[in-house]
């Protein structure tokens, strides 16, 4: 059957002589949601970039709405109704919702922007999506999920026929995810075809009509959304069967590393107490906004405290700022990798060594070669895939590989306490397992206390020695050993 909306046939793509897509087909019908799965580096991004006209394919044909094209540029793709919604926001935060929806295409009245018309039309679009956001609100004042809906609304006003959603739920809370899915249902009924890239397998059955799995530049599985079992999908993505979600072997510990007593911030969390032993991995599980990430921010000196006490190895520690905390032997991995974590234009080796420079030479000097050496050591241990070795710019790596570099940054700095916020957001299944494995191994080997703030219950099950559950700024329960399971976590946190 020839798809009526998009049909990519036998797409090959090479970069610098290295072929990354080996003849992939993809088709999409109007009013259909196609989930595109695959590990980082499988070729998903390259494929959708080709569809959006961002990069030309080396060979293959692209047919959009019956028009066959050998080459496609960005403008042509837009003309044909292809729109991409990225994880990163592309809006203008200081403009209103209405202005953002019609960004650059404001309705005009004899050459001047007609504000009335703009507001009316914007409201119309939002109503069509059944989204309740004020059109006069500043885009920057909205939550991440709402801003994403805004981008979808903008795409619609530009007559989108094909929407590519690149991991839209990565930064969303559960409520926001539900709302996004409702909007997607709306779009389906209006005949919009959607390619939905995600790492969350549980979403596939919920939204996708069909699933396509890419692995190493080949299409390895295409099936109906409802028929795809989780195991089948994981096997297709990895190329081998995944190990079961077994609980890790608990660490036997005795020495307290961190003790938190009655810690409060002004608005985000209240009267939180817990402790973490050396070598132990404790997960604080809670929805976005529950206060779990904010506790870690406060511990690292990124957010002021209004009360309580933090002790490290028996001594009171009052965080002042990140530099002070880092020098006290604390490491911190932020959730927003691009904005707060990586130095995009610098090499992977530099990104990895930034906290260890002081130990790489004397009198403020960094011995040449040590950065590369450190990178090669961790690249092997963490299976970091950097095609051009230590000198490759970090921004050119996949999300999972970038995250591994940022983790290794703190391992190399030999911290005693490591704080991780959403450590596997936007990271594929394979890399995710690598990351869990290495965190546990490092914690054990170097007696490091690890505290993880996460909204992903699977992560808690796979990673934690102990789980603290947070809701509305308070710790509501604590689970240890085999009591840590998905059902208990989800029901306790809501």
């Amino acid at each position, binding site marked *: 059957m020839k798809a009526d909306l998009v049909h990519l046939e036998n797409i090959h793509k090479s*970069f*610098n002589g290295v072929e990354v897509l080996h003849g992939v087909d993809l088709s999409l019908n109007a009013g259909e949601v196609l989930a595109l799965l695959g590990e980082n580096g499988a070729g998903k991004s390259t494929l959708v970039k080709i569809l959006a006209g961002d*990069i030309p394919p080396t060979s293959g044909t692209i047919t959009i709405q019956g028009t066959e094209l050998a080459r496609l540029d960005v403008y042509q793709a837009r003309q044909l109704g292809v729109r991409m919604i990225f994880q990163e926001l592309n809006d203008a935060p200081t403009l209103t919702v209405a202005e953002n929806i019609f960004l650059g295409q404001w309705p005009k009245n004899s050459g001047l922007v007609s504000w009335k018309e703009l507001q009316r039309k914007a409201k119309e679009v939002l109503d069509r999506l059944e989204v309740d956001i004020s059109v006069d609100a500043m885009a920057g004042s909205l939550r991440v999920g709402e801003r994403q809906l805004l981008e979808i609304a903008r795409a619609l006003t530009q007559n989108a026929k094909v929407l590519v959603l690149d991991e839209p739920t990565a930064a969303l809370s559960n409520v926001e995810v539900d709302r996004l899915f409702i909007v997607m249902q709306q779009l389906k009924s209006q005949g919009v075809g959607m390619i939905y890239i995600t790492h969350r397998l549980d979403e596939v059955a919920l939204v996708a009509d069909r699933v396509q799995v890419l692995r190493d530049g080949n299409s390895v599985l295409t099936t109906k959304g409802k028929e795809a079992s989780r195991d089948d999908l994981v096997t297709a993505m990895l190329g081998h069967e995944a190990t079961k979600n077994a609980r890790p072997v608990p660490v036997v510990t005795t020495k307290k590393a961190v003790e938190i007593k009655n810690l409060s911030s002004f608005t985000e969390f209240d009267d939180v107490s817990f402790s973490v032993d050396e070598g132990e991995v404790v997960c604080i599980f809670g929805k976005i906004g529950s206060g779990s990430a904010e506790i870690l921010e406060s511990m690292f000196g*990124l957010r002021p405290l209004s009360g309580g006490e933090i002790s490290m190895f028996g001594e009171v520690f009052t965080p002042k700022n*990140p*530099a*002070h*905390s*880092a*020098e006290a032997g604390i490491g*911190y991995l*932020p959730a927003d990798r691009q*904005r*707060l*974590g*990586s*130095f*995009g*234009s*610098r*090499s992977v*080796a*530099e990104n990895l060594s*930034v*906290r260890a*420079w*002081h130990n790489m*030479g004397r009198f*403020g*000097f*960094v011995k*040449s*070669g040590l*950065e*590369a*050496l450190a990178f*090669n050591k961790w690249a092997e241990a963490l299976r970091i895939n950097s095609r*051009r*070795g*230590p*000198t*490759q*710019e970090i921004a050119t790596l996949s999300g999972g590989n970038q995250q591994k570099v940022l983790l290794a*940054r703190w391992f190399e700095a030999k911290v005693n306490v490591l704080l991780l916020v959403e450590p596997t957001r936007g990271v594929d299944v394979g890399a995710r397992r690598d990351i869990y494995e290495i965190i546990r191994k490092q914690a054990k080997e170097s007696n490091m206390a690890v505290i993880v703030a996460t909204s992903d219950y699977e992560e808690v099950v796979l990673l934690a020695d102990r789980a603290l559950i947070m809701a509305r700024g308070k710790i509501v329960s604590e689970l240890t050993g085999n009591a840590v399971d998905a059902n208990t976590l989800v029901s306790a946190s809501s």
Partner: protein
Amino acid sequence: MSEPQTTKHPVATEAKKRRSIPATAPLVVFLLAMMIFFTITSEYFFDIENFRNILVAMAVTGVVCVPGTLLMISGQVDLSVGSAAAVSGMILAKTVNSHGIAIGLLLCLVFGLVIGLINGFFVTVVGVSSLITTLGTLATLYGVALLIGNGQTVGMRNFDWLGTAQPFNFPLPVIIFALLSILGAIVLRKTVYGRSLYAIGSNPNAARVVGIRSNRILLLTFIYSGLASALAGAILTSQLSAGDPNAARGLELEAITAIVLGGASLAGGRGTLFGTVLGLLVLGVLNNGLILLDIPTFWQRIAQGVMLILAVSFDQVRQKLNDQR
């Protein structure tokens, strides 16, 4: 992509072969092409004495370009260098006449330090962008320079060695510039401070969150810039044997043009001192060639402005090409 990593690891050496276009390669080609052109068109160009002139002419700008490059890499800019040089020159001329060379030089450098502190304070503590802060000090200090000499130049006696001495038959200002450049290059490549500048420029938010003391580092760099401006002012004043409030006008434009030509990105996180030196040579050779060809000096200004725009455009094009690979 600018600094080669010296390592024997096979992955790294293999990686070198597949390097993207180095930022400096086209600049070298351009410089050579210009030199060939001027050699053909002017009989005076290819001459040791003329080369010496070129180097002397770029030394003063070069001195402020060293910290200027560090600042640009960290995503900052110092526009006050010209005015600061003018004021320190005036101070020098006045005090050398009355209190001698040592006191004069000391005061001159103290002034540079203070200006660096002021610029750095507003950028790091108050949080004003460096573009605006130093634009303000640029205007203010120009006024101060005029004020000191009452709008006139101030003659200075018995202190021309800093600007004109030739130890080992080589102009002292050029030696000073060369030493500063080498020192700067080592600092950038080999020290924690230098590496931190790249990190801050590449992503200031991440630099803070990873625990780099950015404010301290930037303040220090603004102080270097202030000191270098004072030194440049001193050299200039010594060359002219007079403090001239207008002598260093446009120094900031020339410095930034050279730095950007050399491949430092205005967005921060990229750049090398080697590139900046090449940029300075390009400007130096261009100015010199235009003079030798008897082209009116107004054209030098025009050429410089055009070069700045070309340099920035080229930077953009190069980045796009590299992204596409």
